[in-house]
């Protein structure tokens, strides 16, 4: 593939015309793209049909170009300042062709700061099962603005992939490469405890890295569907000190459907929830450089079946949960419910950062059920409570851990944490030499403690009464060998390499 998106030096002349005789100011940019190779060849004379996505703007059709099996989109296809304001469909290309975007893909106006101007039913990005979207610029990201939706419905046999275009060449290292492009950002109209609770409808919060505005009053907002979606090698720092998360859920409402998603080798967090109430089922987070699951600012959703695996090159926490960084007791409290989570740590360990398990702090509430947290010898503490405002929730039953197994060299950060865990129903503390997983993925059945004796964790009964979103299960951990929901679509797991 010939690189054809870079403009040569001197490609632009911006003329600032300040016409003195009553005219308007005209700043006229003229692009002279003299490096573009317009002589696109279709090797083998393949398909003549242009399947690339297109939209009509002011009567002009903007469309990607066919390049071999791929579709290559022009640099001005969408930018944060000139987002796509109409529906867009991206199809699955034949012969594993990819849709290649020079920068990112921006749907709806992410910079709109006047709530009244946000459409209740904005543009919809539809991505067909099996499609691959690849991004060239490191700072390019996918942004779904408030009022807009993404409908990405892959299947177990035909997942949808978001990745760096470098990944298409097979030239990336699946263990060490990260941050080759930005990531996926969903901006919603749900509730954040950073907003003025008396004026939620007008709330505008700045996303990390200047990636748009979010916030609102509607925790049942609908941002679309993410199903069987894999996000790989993302997390580039898009602004000073701001790496992006693999998928960031900014105040996303619970009418949004999220299931079977994976974030692999992101620089920053795998998935992060800032406020909102979106739920998710079947989540895989592998090799992420910072925290795998992160939440803050009033998120009140639920997740069931979530598998986290750290790798040896870079990692931090399995969960980092906060309430609100500026006010630990801000309301509504962050109060997620997580069931059936497995966290497998690694030996990554430096003075200031290492692979750890679960950290709950800054006043977050949480209900944790059916956890399995384990890792090798050098993994840091597997369970930690920070800040009195967090610990205060134990007495009010707003901080709960039940039916969970911790098997680490350093299970608890301190006595308070240990007391909390021990007092919880059906919790089991083992050591790092216990056998709690089978092949690093499936919950071992039976589990063996360090001495080789069988131990039997008791799964939380009637989870569906805790939250109708939950299924009732009879196992702890994320994946049972009997029903491997990761089969087929998830990347780089032990079951299907």
């Amino acid at each position: 593939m010939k690189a054809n998106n870079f403009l040569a030096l001197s490609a632009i002349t911006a003329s600032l015309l300040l016409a003195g005789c009553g005219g308007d100011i005209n700043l006229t940019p003229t692009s002279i793209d003299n490096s573009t190779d317009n002589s696109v060849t279709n090797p083998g004379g393949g398909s003549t049909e242009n399947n690339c996505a297109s939209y009509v703007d002011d009567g002009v059709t903007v469309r990607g170009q066919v390049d071999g099996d791929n579709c290559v989109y022009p640099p001005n296809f969408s930018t944060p300042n000139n987002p796509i304001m109409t529906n867009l469909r991206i199809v699955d290309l034949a012969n594993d062709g990819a849709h290649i975007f020079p920068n990112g893909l921006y749907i709806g106006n992410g910079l709109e700061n006047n709530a009244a101007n946000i459409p209740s039913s904005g543009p919809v990005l539809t991505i067909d099962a099996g499609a691959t979207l690849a991004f060239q610029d490191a700072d390019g990201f996918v942004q779904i603005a408030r009022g807009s939706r993404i409908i990405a419905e892959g299947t177990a046999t035909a997942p949808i992939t978001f990745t760096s275009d470098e990944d298409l060449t097979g030239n990336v290292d699946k263990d060490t490469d990260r941050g080759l492009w930005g990531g996926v950002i969903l901006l919603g109209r749900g509730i954040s405890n950073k907003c003025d609770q008396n004026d939620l409808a007008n709330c505008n919060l700045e996303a990390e890295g200047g990636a748009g505005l979010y916030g609102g009053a509607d925790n049942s907002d609908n941002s679309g569907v993410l199903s069987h979606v894999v996000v790989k090698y993302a997390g580039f720092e898009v602004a000073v000190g701001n790496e992006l998360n693999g998928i960031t859920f900014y105040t996303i409402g619970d009418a949004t459907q999220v299931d079977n998603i994976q974030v692999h080798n992101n620089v920053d967090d795998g998935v992060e929830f800032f406020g909102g109430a979106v739920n998710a089922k079947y989540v895989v987070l592998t090799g992420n450089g910072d925290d795998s699951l992160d939440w803050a600012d009033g998120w009140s959703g639920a997740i069931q079946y979530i598998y986290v695996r750290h790798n040896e090159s870079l990692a931090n926490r399995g969960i980092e949960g906060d309430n609100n960084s500026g006010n630990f007791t801000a309301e509504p409290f962050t109060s997620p419910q997580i069931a059936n989570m497995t966290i497998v740590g690694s030996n990554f360990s430096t003075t200031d950062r290492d692979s750890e398990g679960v950290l709950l702090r800054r006043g977050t509430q949480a209900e944790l059920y059916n956890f399995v947290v384990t890792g090798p010898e050098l993994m840091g503490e597997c369970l930690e409570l920070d800040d009195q405002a967090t610990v205060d929730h134990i007495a009010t039953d707003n901080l709960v851990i039940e039916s969970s197994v911790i098997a680490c060299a350093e299970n608890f950060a301190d006595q308070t944490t240990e007391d909390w865990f021990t007092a919880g129903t059906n919790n089991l503390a083992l050591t790092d030499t216990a056998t709690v997983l089978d092949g690093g993925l499936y919950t071992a059945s039976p589990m063996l403690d360090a001495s080789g004796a069988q131990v039997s964790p008791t799964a939380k009964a009637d989870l569906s009464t805790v939250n109708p979103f939950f299924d009732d299960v009879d196992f702890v951990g994320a994946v049972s060998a009997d029903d491997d929901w990761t089969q087929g679509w998830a990347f780089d797991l032990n079951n299907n390499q």
Partner: protein
Amino acid sequence: MKRTPIITKHKLGLAIALALSGQMALAQEQEATETIEEVVTTGTRLQGSAAAVVEERKEQAFVADILGAEQISRTGDSDAAAALRRVTGLTLVDGKFIYIRGLGERYSSTQLNGAQVPSPDPTRNVIPLDMFPASIIESLEVQKSYSADKPAHFGGGNVDIRTKSLPEEEAFEIQIGTGWNSESSSDALAYGDSNDWLGSDDQRALAQPFLQALATYGSVNFTDIARYEEISTDQARLINRDLMNTMNTDYDVYTESVSPDIKGSVSYGNQFVLADDWTFGFLGAVDYDRATRNSDQERRVLGFSGENLVNQYRSESQISTHSVELSGMFNTGLEFGNNHKLETSSIFLRDTQDRIQRGITETIDTIGEENLSFFDTDIRYEERELLSHQLRGSHLFPELHNIAIDWQYTDATSRRDAPGNVFTRQGADADIGEQPQNLNYQRSRNAAVLEFQDLEDQVENYGADIELPFYLDGNELLLQAGGEVMRKARESYGRRFGFSTESTPLSELTNTEFSELFGPDSVNDPDNNLQVYGAPTLTDPNYLAAQQIEAGYGLFDYTTSKWRLNAGARWEQYSQVSAQIDLATSTIIGAIENTTRREDDWFGGAGLTYFVDDTTQLRLTYGKSTVRPDLREITEVVFIDPLTSDKVRGNPNLISTDVQSFDARWEWYGPAGDNWSLGAFYKDLTNPIESVEAKATDSDRVITFLNGDTGHVYGLEFEFLKDLTMVTDGLFVNGNLTLSDSEITIQNTGGVELTNNERRMTGHSKYVINTQLGYDTLDGEHSAALVYNVFGERIAFAGSVFGGRGIDDAFEQPFHSLDAIYTWYPDFNSKLRLKVQNLLGEDTEIMQNGQVIQKQTVGTSVSLEYSYSF
């Protein structure tokens, strides 16, 4: 259509041309009033100086103060900013910016010889006044009420810096000096090139091959290299490492003892009679200052846990700043008779600051952990330069009813170049207040962050004034009209790179130096897997902007024996445009139409002076002016404020502030220079611009700008000079006191939730006191002064609501500044000056919710200067 491109600079593929059509019928304003003659009332030094200032004021139609070169040199001030502290109601902030009447620097504007010049500091829209050494200053004129001959962008006041004009006779002066600060007893931090004598970078800038790579690949990321070259990523990583090896890595910080300050200046001027009536003269001056300052800083960021305050961030660090100030000036003048004069003035100023900050930081991730913190090193180097060329003339035509014409043309360029600024964060096995033993660089995409920023403003300013005097029965009427054109174009570029250690063995990251880890040996070792990353991002400060102001005015000044009335009106048209640039693709981001604005309006001022008797006069003035947002403030890019390290985001929806001012003033001028005055002022601001904190996600602190609804400032100014001969000969006291209050109303927006929607204006002090106790010996051989200055607490930044709980506004605490100056004049040609600053050893402090959130030591400075002149 005639086109005059004033900028044709090509850089990184970008060019901006500012083309104009039509011609300006009107010309400008210029040398405000007449040239300022020195008025020295008595033979005493300090007292005479102070008295001369008030004598000048008596002659002004508006509330204005003028400091002449003589006064400045008598009081021993080293630069314009320090000298301006002597003026009523002025506050000096950071030793650089003037707050007039307790209002922030937004409300003061600066002119150089009557021309508008750009600010070399992109975070401010005014000129840092410490860049003008006293030796090149002829006079400083501070006007505190608006008159139509000044630019309409006028808030609390305007400072006109007039550089030295032609000498009356051959004049030579050489000055040398040295200085020391009490904080210098500890060693200073230093690195590689931090001791450059000229304050000119020859090490940090990106090398040509690196720039070439950026231009070719759009970034230096290995993925982009691989894509462009159609090579494997392994090969691309090798190219990336070669590029990394072209970058400066000489950033190992060490300590060294502090050398004393070095100061020196030389000036020489002369004049020659060329022929009958023709006189030619020139004046050249060079000034050099070099100093190192140490300071200890403590910082905290507060948050809430319920009712309780918690620390979210703490740091204790040492800051060493190596500064070099270099300036040069060359003026020429050609005079024909007494009525015609042509002058040129070229000024070069350079102010280089190399600041190294290092110390322990506790973030939310480490603050609760024992024996764990971060060891941060932050190196910021910036060169600020201003180069201004001016041609001006003044003409008097006695044969044509004494019409006087003044005109000027000024071309100025200012630049802030900040190459190779580096930040590293290392893990440390100690807590705050302890000495870390083992430091490890982070395994991270950004184990070291290198920043390169370059900003350039070009300003063209020209204009003319015409004056026509009439004499009617002993009364005097002066008609004045003029016009002005000001064009300013800005280019701003920023690039950031990260040294990635994502796959570097941990052993290599521990207990190592910067140059060892990131130097060629380490980079070339394939096992270390080092890479440099850096793609331009949408929020980098890459933008073009331009501004044009066209103005015309007319005014009259009518004087009788009993009163004087001065009134005028000014029309200004203001046009502005800005465009964000994507450096990777050399394209303009967004719709430029949305950033253009053009507005025109009428402004004006009127002043009435009533001469009660020979010793007393009463003044009333009114002014209508505006305060416009700076180019940067309306450009939607993120910028890091070098003073506060906060992210600052422009707001394209900002509108100009309308200002209406009312002044009343009672002035009494007595014998022996004794005088006092009492003034009252009231300012009404519509849509005042304030900086506020935007609601951002978690780790970010983002400052943005908002228009408030209304603002008011009002207060009293009292000023006095009292001869104390009755105590002892040559003793006197002078000073001034401003008591004022302000109020601003600012609404919350969806993204800004303020703790106090009604409060004082940011930066406003309720009181400002300046006093001087001066002593001159009768033989004129010695003079001494004690100078005391204090300002009341002022809002450093406004508090915001976090999760329903509002944190208080943060207040900078009063700083009691006491200085002593002694000068000995052994003979007619030489003098020796000893100056001690901050005798009380005060520190700067910012408090919030009853807690000190920032504290920085200042130390006591001593300096000694000797000068010889003939």
